[in-house]
């Protein structure tokens, strides 16, 4: 083996690391570029606002868009309050003890459960045991449990960012603990919680496996009108049109993928904008 001088070996290593970085980034660019290039022409007003026709091969994706919208709205309104309250308990009411350690372990564990296992669980408890059937609410409950650890973790971060002295000042005035949280801690943690929530919305909008057996179905001839309806959803629809239907026009598949991609990326982008805005307008 040839012994390289330290200088040369440094140069060589840096180039290799740079190449690795490029390699890590290329797929993202390829994926986004491929979808935009092939899908852009499919996006028309009609595509977004009409029902699928001819066994999905023509027509639009409106019911899938609305289905995803309703499931995500329900899921986030369930998981957000629970997650924030749990974070408040962990951050504001207790220090390390056995119970909080078990809760934290449970959260780590929940965060690691595969999404398809959440799907199984949702099927077992909500669809079958609680007899909610395959429905918006069963899917939303499943997703909300899946997203709970993420919400708790971001909310804890946001609560932690509020200076401890604010709590002390408020408590020293005879204001109760909950009032201090409600009027001082929460308002100041809100930006962080909001940003985290928007990111969660983006994430669960694209989830397929948890709603596979709990909410989504192949085709529904009408738009969703109750939380007990089964619905079409965008990610499941993409799965269906890209794998389950022979002779599917490529344009529709790419169009569906592009709508899903734009939706998820726009929401994530909003979170980034929100974070920058809040950082600039920080009160302390």
């Amino acid at each position, binding site marked *: 083996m040839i012994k390289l001088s330290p200088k040369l070996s440094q140069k060589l290593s840096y180039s290799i690391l740079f190449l690795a970085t490029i390699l890590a980034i290329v797929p993202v660019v390829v994926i986004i570029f491929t979808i935009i290039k092939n899908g852009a022409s499919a996006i028309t007003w009609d595509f977004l606002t009409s029902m699928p026709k001819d066994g999905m091969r023509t027509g639009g994706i409106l019911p899938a868009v609305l289905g995803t919208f309703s499931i995500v709205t329900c899921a986030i309104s369930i998981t957000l309050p629970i997650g924030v309250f749990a974070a408040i308990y962990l951050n504001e009411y207790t*220090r390390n003890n056995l119970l909080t350690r078990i809760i934290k372990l449970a959260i780590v564990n929940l965060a690691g459960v595969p999404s398809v296992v959440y799907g199984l669980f949702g099927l077992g408890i909500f669809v079958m045991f609680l007899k909610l059937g395959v429905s918006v609410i069963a899917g939303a409950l499943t997703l909300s449990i899946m997203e709970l650890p993420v919400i708790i973790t971001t909310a804890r971060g946001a609560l932690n960012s509020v200076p401890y*002295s*604010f709590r*002390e*000042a*408020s*408590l*020293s*005035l*005879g*204001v*109760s603990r909950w*009032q201090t949280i409600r*009027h*001082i801690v929460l308002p*100041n943690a809100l930006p962080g919680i909001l940003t985290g929530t928007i990111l969660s919305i983006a994430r669960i909008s694209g989830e397929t496996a948890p709603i596979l057996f709990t909410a989504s179905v192949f085709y529904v001839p009408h738009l969703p009108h109750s939380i007990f309806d089964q619905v079409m959803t965008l990610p499941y629809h993409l799965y269906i049109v890209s794998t389950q239907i022979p002779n599917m026009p490529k344009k529709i598949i790419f169009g569906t993928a592009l709508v899903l991609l734009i939706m998820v990326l726009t929401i994530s982008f909003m979170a980034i904008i929100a974070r920058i805005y809040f950082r600039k307008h920080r*009160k*302390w």
Partner: protein
Amino acid sequence: MVDKIKVENLSCCYNKKCVLDSLNINVIQNEILSIIGPANSGKTTFLRTLNRMNDLDVTYLRKGEVYLDNDNIFNMNMENLRKRVGMLFAMPIPLPMSIYENIIYAPKRLGLILKKSEQDAIVEQALRDASLWNEVKDRLDSSAMKMSGGQQQRLCIARILAINPEVILFDEPCSGLDPISTAKVEESMIELKQKYTIVLVTNNVKQASRVGDRTAFFLMGNLIEIDKTDKLFISPKERQTEDYITGRFG
């Protein structure tokens, strides 16, 4: 000469490291009691015990009793105690809201005021008593975070006055302030003792001699000496006290 606060055999420890050792001390109604002593003498722990701010710390352990007007403070509801015994911290901590909101925050939460007209009156009175009114009356809606350090500290005093406590605890209230702001805070302290009982913890021996009616000297968790301020400064009984106030250690 009525005792406002009576402390009996108070011992305090954090994580088994004890910082106060069976302390007996009293605070007389409408006096300013200054507490001096080097770092780790237990003076801040003592102060934070008086309105139970230390209870927030899980490693904190306490023995002994403290009476406020003959009521044991450890049997009292924490919020009621803190309403009666206000505390000013070393660094000014304005809450991230407007000057006006800072003042009415606690009275509102405690259910002391309901009407808007009452609020205005309370804000004005509190700011006047803390000699801040003239400086801020035209910008009550601006953020309290934008005031100078000295103004912020007086705002914190005003905030305490708005809930009308009986005792006010000052924890090195001027450590972050310049001499002019310090003088202003000291002035308001002297005015406040007409209505309130004051306990002042300070690192500044001169400050204790300027404002204190009585002064207590703490060392390593023990009360070494307590006396009328001029007496303690002119002819201290204990050798350690003399060493400390003449600057030989600490």
